[in-house]
């Protein structure tokens, strides 16, 4: 080994020796007995402070982990895939059986006829019914006729 290489190797060894001295750094005597007591106290306090919901979630998590998280995930995935397949495979136009007795009846088509029969009085802005019956429609549905606007002339604004 050449001299610079030797020096580097010595330097590395020296650095390691110095770092190894850190193993003598220890906490005060009696620290570890106190540590265990503190741990037990914290555990108890934690148990008291945590909500029943978080405890339930944690226990459920542990239970599922015991049962086999991956198997649960696979089973859930397979169930979802089957459900999707069933929906896709059902013939188009045929209702999917909802699994309960839905009320059955005839559906009568509704024609798109006028909602009322009559005329609209453009001057008064009201509906004049064709028959005797009165049709109560709100006035905002029909605006009064404005001849200027109809002719495309500019609107006169009164000040």
């Amino acid at each position, binding site marked *: 080994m050449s001299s610079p290489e030797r020096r580097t190797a010595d330097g590395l060894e020296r650095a390691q020796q110095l*770092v190894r001295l850190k193993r003598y750094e220890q906490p005060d005597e009696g620290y570890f007995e106190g540590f265990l007591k503190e741990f037990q106290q914290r555990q108890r306090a934690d148990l008291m402070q945590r909500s029943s919901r978080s405890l339930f979630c944690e226990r459920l998590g542990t239970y599922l982990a015991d049962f086999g998280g991956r198997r649960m995930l696979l089973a859930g995935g397979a169930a979802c895939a089957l459900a999707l397949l069933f929906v896709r495979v059902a013939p188009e136009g045929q209702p999917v059986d909802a699994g309960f007795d839905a009320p059955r009846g005839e559906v009568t088509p509704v024609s798109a006829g006028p909602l009322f029969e009559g005329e609209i009085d453009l001057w008064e802005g009201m509906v004049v019914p064709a028959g005797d019956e009165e049709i109560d429609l709100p006035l905002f549905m029909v605006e009064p006729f404005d001849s200027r606007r109809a002719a495309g002339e500019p609107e006169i604004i009164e000040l």
Partner: protein
Amino acid sequence: MADVKKRKPDEDRGLVERAKDGDTAAFDELVTKYSPKLYGLVYHMTSNHEDTNDLLQDIFAKAYRSLRRFRGRSAFYTWIYSISVNMTLNFLKKRNRHWKISLDDVDSAIEFDKEFIEQTSKTDPVRESNIHELQLRLNEAMMELSDDHRAVVTMFDIQGMPHNEIAKILKVSPGTVRSRLFYAHRQLQNHLEEFRR
């Protein structure tokens, strides 16, 4: 190092099984057994006693909560070390990057440690220097390393663990551990230049 090599992979199995069945005394035994080793790991990575104490409490609490998920594929020792390293690395990411070591963080008890005095008196430059100063510089040099490099130096140089054990804990190859160590030693050498023989 020999202590770690001799370790049987399942030596804690009985205690772990009992703890899983709800025997809190069994878990207390595991805490008593591993707290000094894990304290060293966390302390040398954080360089702060208070942070170490809080983190160590959290580590054992986490281990207790996750114990039923521990399948025994690795030794309990490897498992709890992995939890400790991960939690410490997460903590260090959150800790203020401008955090600096002060003299208050330096362990004063070490100055009266017989073994330490014996070790340092064997080496000429250290004999001349202030032990407190050396400690401060050592801590500074350690904190200059990246968190990942500090973790391998702590486990290998300070705690005497073999490469393959560290590799299992960090879930990296032994080659990666060796390369991190080499790089970290080079950095430490530069920082501790003045304490060279």
